């Protein structure tokens, strides 16, 4: 287990040998192989000695307990060996950017551990540390406004932030008690977490430093004062409530240097060689879009009802410049009340709202997520309480050519381009309905025409019979149209087939594999499209039926 811990901490992973048989003494049984170099590298690690010391310490302690030598126990506990992982972090990530690139797993793990109950499974200190670090990180994201994408999946909530140019993605579980599985080795996870907390702490420090924020974070003085009276005196000790206040995510953080209302230090334009004006323009536009995205909720005041998940929503809204509050009894850090007339949006997740206040939108939480992903405030009509919500799409999917694109995404893209597809679609719907009506009429007309034709045919038959024509018939020769294009295509395809016949075996195999993959992709896309079409027609028919029923 010491080796396992070392491997985890030092990031040593097995390797696949080039010649498996040669290495495995002729057998091909699956085994894990480490590089000898790596294992030697582990041996030089000073932390190995620390592990040994700790083992000895545990042995001594057990002995002292057994003999009930309490003074010895105290003395031993005073001298409990401890170790630090700083040098390992530095060694594994020589530059800060390396550390940022590897932050995904660290964040997800810390978020998971911070939701664990304080009993069993792992040390309470670890859980508290994880909670602290994650809250600090969230506060950094808020302060730097670097959140980009959010996604409500059935597993949990995915977030993607762009920290110093690196995309960092993490997932948090929904806030429910965990059903702890029995077939999971928590010691492995604890070892990983041990490393990840160290890493995250250093990363947080550096990130806070980069924004001139104090670390450990301090709530901004003014807001602190504002917060105090509202929560009452008998809440808790200051030291205890501090983390909770921080995790309420409602207050901005204190800076080392007071913010001097930076005028968004404008980027100097450097004409880069080889870069055309167009590229410059696109870059500029992208930057502008980014700035706009960062200020998505600026000026809006949100109120969260108690049934919506407070932390994720507060985090997201604050990340995009909105102000947010909640019921005072729900959590510390509420800044304004429900009755505040300046509230613009109230996030509600119940079928209907009694006693609505005029002057604010009542919306379901999905609106916040969808708006963030769409980079614009979506029309609110689809998200009123009790309304059937539009599908929630993943922002992480970028459709390539030939992939299936759900129609909602198309609509969204059109909206981002500045068109207004809503009206069009409605018009289309109406038109369609009209068309359908027309079709009905046409069908009727068709039927009448058919009847006439039948009559004509009968008359002709009668005529021919009366004439009793000769059995020999001269049929008019059909003009065979030679489609030149088709012929050419056929020829080309035949040429291709013949050329494929001449391919080498390996290339042919590869070619077939590629073509198979392509075909499968097309098939899947077609399947999805067909499914959607069937669903839509079923829906429309249902709607039609209900409409007819209403008319009748």
């Amino acid at each position, binding site marked *: 287990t010491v080796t*396992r811990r070392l491997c*985890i901490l030092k990031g040593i*992973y*097995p*390797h696949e040998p080039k010649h498996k048989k040669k290495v495995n003494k002729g057998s091909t049984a699956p085994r*894990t192989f480490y590089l000898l170099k790596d294992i030697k*590298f582990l041996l030089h690690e000073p932390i190995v000695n620390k592990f040994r010391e700790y083992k000895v310490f545990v042995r001594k302690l057990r002995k002292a307990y057994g003999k009930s030598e309490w003074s010895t126990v105290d003395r031993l506990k*005073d*001298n409990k060996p401890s170790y630090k992982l700083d040098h390992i972090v*530095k060694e594994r990530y*020589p*530059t800060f950017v*390396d*550390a940022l690139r*590897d932050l*995904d*797993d660290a964040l*997800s793990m810390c978020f*998971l551990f911070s939701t664990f109950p304080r009993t069993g499974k792992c040390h309470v200190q670890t859980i508290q540390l994880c909670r602290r670090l994650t809250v600090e990180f969230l506060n950094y994201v808020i302060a730097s406004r670097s959140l980009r994408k959010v*996604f*409500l*999946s*059935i*597993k949990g909530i995915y977030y993607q932030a762009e920290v110093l140019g690196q995309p960092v*993605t993490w997932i948090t*579980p*929904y806030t*429910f008690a965990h*059903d702890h*599985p029995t077939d999971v*080795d928590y010691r*492995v996870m604890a070892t*990983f977490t041990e490393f990840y907390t160290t890493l995250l*702490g*250093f990363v947080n*420090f*550096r990130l806070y*430093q980069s924004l001139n924020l104090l*670390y450990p974070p301090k709530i901004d003085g003014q807001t602190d004062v504002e917060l105090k009276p509202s929560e009452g005196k008998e809440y808790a000790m200051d030291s205890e409530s501090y983390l909770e206040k921080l995790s309420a995510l409602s207050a901005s953080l204190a800076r080392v240097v007071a913010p001097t209302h930076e005028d968004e230090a404008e980027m100097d334009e450097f004409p880069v060689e080889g870069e055309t004006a167009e590229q410059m323009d696109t870059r500029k536009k992208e930057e502008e879009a980014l700035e706009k995205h960062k200020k998505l909720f600026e000026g809006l005041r949100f109120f969260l009802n108690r049934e*919506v998940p407070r932390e994720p929503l507060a985090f997201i809204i604050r990340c995009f410049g909105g102000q947010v509050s909640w019921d005072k009894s729900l959590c510390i850090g509420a800044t304004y009340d429900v009755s505040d007339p300046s509230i613009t949006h109230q996030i509600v*997740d119940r079928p209907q709202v009694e006693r609505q206040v005029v002057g604010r939108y009542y919306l379901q*939480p*999905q609106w916040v997520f969808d708006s963030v992903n769409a980079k614009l405030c979506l029309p609110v009509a689809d998200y009123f309480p009790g309304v059937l919500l539009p*599908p*929630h*799409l*993943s922002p*992480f999917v970028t459709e390539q050519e030939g992939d299936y694109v*759900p129609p909602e995404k198309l609509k969204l893209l059109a909206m981002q381009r500045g068109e207004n597809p809503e009206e069009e679609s409605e018009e289309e719907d109406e038109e369609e309905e009209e068309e359908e009506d027309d079709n009905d009429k046409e069908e009727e007309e068709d039927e009448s025409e058919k009847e006439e034709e039948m009559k004509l045919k009968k008359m002709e038959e009668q005529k021919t019979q009366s004439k009793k024509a000769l059995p020999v018939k001269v049929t008019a020769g059909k003009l065979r149209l030679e489609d030149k294009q088709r012929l050419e295509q056929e020829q080309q395809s035949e040429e291709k087939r*013949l*050329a494929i*016949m*001449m391919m080498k075996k390996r*290339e042919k195999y*590869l*070619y077939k594999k590629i073509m198979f993959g*392509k075909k499968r992709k097309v098939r899947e896309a077609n399947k999805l499209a067909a*499914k*959607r079409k069937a*669903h839509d027609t079923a829906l429309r028919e249902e709607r039609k039926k209900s409409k007819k029923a209403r008319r009748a």
Partner: protein
Amino acid sequence: LLTPPGTQGCVCLTRCPLLSPHPPLPSAPLQDIRNTVGNIPMEWYQDFPHVGYDLEGKRIYKPIRNKDELDMFLEKMENPDYWRTVQDKMTGADIKLTDEQVDLVHRLQKGQFGDVHFNPYEPAVDFFTHEVMIHPVTNRPADKRSFIPSLIEKEKVSKLVHAIKMGWIKPRKPKDDTPTYYDLWAHEDPNSILGRHKMHVPAPKMKLPGHEESYNPPPEYLLSEEEKLAWEQQEPAERKLPVVPQQYRCLRAVPAYARFIHERFERCLDLYLCPRQRKMRVNVDPEDLIPKLPKPRDLQPFPTTQALVYRGHTSLVRCLSISPSGQWLVSGSDDGTVRFWEVCTARCMKTLTVGGVVKSVAWNPNPTVCLVAVCVEQSVLLVNPCLGDKLLYGATDQLLESYAAPEEERVQPVQWVTATVEEHSKGVRLLVQHSKAVKQVTWHGKGDYFASVVSDNSNMQVLIHQTSKRWSQNPFRKSKGLVQCVLFHPIRPYFFVATQRYVRVYNLLKQELTKKLMTNCKWVSSMAIHPGGDNIICGSYDSKLAWFDLDLSTRPYQLLRHHKRALRSVAFHRHYPLFASGSDDGTVIVCHGMVYNDLLQNPLLVPVKVLKGHVMTLDLGVLDVLFHPTQPWVFSSGADGTVRLYT
């Protein structure tokens, strides 16, 4: 408990607090009936008539209770003091509580002191004053031990000192007051990026979720019932979607994900247990893989369309041959007939019934001789078809008749028999009777010699016959395997023998083996030689066609796997750079096979046309292919009983 001051001097033997103040006993003569049993549970006396013993040791009897329920009730109703009457457990007597006693009970129930006069808030009296006195409280002199150092302590201290000296006890570590977190990357040293980091393969990031993982996905991503069932039956490793997409109508309804911890744990396992490897993803445009070949259009002429169908045979047409002039075609079939066709009109000129399966036919390549060799069962018939120029076939007959038997009979492996009159009228001139069934016959280029292959396992498999001398010989002393087919070199005195896996080349003049070609096939079916004589193609039953360049190597220059099923025959064109192969899949593939005179340039092989037409019968397709001697036309005979001409 405090005894009320009013009842002082009373000795309490019983410990019942209520009755401790001894009540004035109701009956004077029984003076002191105090019970002496002590503090025991009185239930022990339940079954006895007495409840204990008095001071003199006599029994105290329980009072006689003769009241029934009704009496009890009446007493309860009538007796005004009933509520203050209690039973003394120790004596069993009923006692009426006095007013004082009732008061006491009330006070105790309220949690007050029992004594009415007791004041709990009296001012405290300092017994030991705060003022320091000049005299000690006691006059005892100090002990000696308070003046001398303690031996036990000394022992303990010396033990500790020894332990410290020996290093068993370490001083408490000074508190480490460096902050836990600091700017670790303050001095990023480019030298610290070692080879390790360059070699390091970063773990791939976890896959980001797609639309199907949303809590409210578009309806097309939801699985139908069958798909769900299929998903459940799949192995977890095989599943394309890790979770079944589900739709919840609002965020409130979304439950916790049960496998969250599992997934994190699996990720941890992946991170430290999975071997990592950089894999180059093949990023090739599939169009680039297709070799650039000259366009078939530029390689014309070659047969492209089916022109004629020769119908007449009722069974599979096994073999084809064409006259050197290209006017007549002969075909042998399983229905026991040999038919002669005119090529241009598809007219059957003549039908020869031979009464057996015709395995092979071969037209004499000599244009001055009009003779066809036909393999029927154990004999080879030499047939004069009597077609074409009368002079020509008359000359052939004369040539055959001019044979004069030699003086001395030589021992021959076969028998040469002249045809009977009846047979002669049909056109058969000579019969060469073998001991076993003959499966192939082929002419030498000059038209005098021909070779036949007997399906046998001995050294008698291949025989070479001379028509003019009616003489046969067996060229081989030893059998080298099952011979499939034989071939004469068109120009040089070479003889090709194809066994199952090898093609052997013999020099007929030197009478020795010159080459042995490895075909890389499982079972050679047919063989054809380029008119130039330097290239050979071999068709095999494992659907391969091997092209040999005799000057290059004994291994195939190229193995073509064009056909999907076994190849039955291959053929070269005599003038055009074309070769064709017919296969069981019913197709004839015509390829352009250019051989350059320049020895440095390798032959160019390009498939130019796939010809279809034959109907699959009995799981067989094309049985024989043959080129027209002068035109770029190809004949094919099939299992459907037809011969087809493609031009």
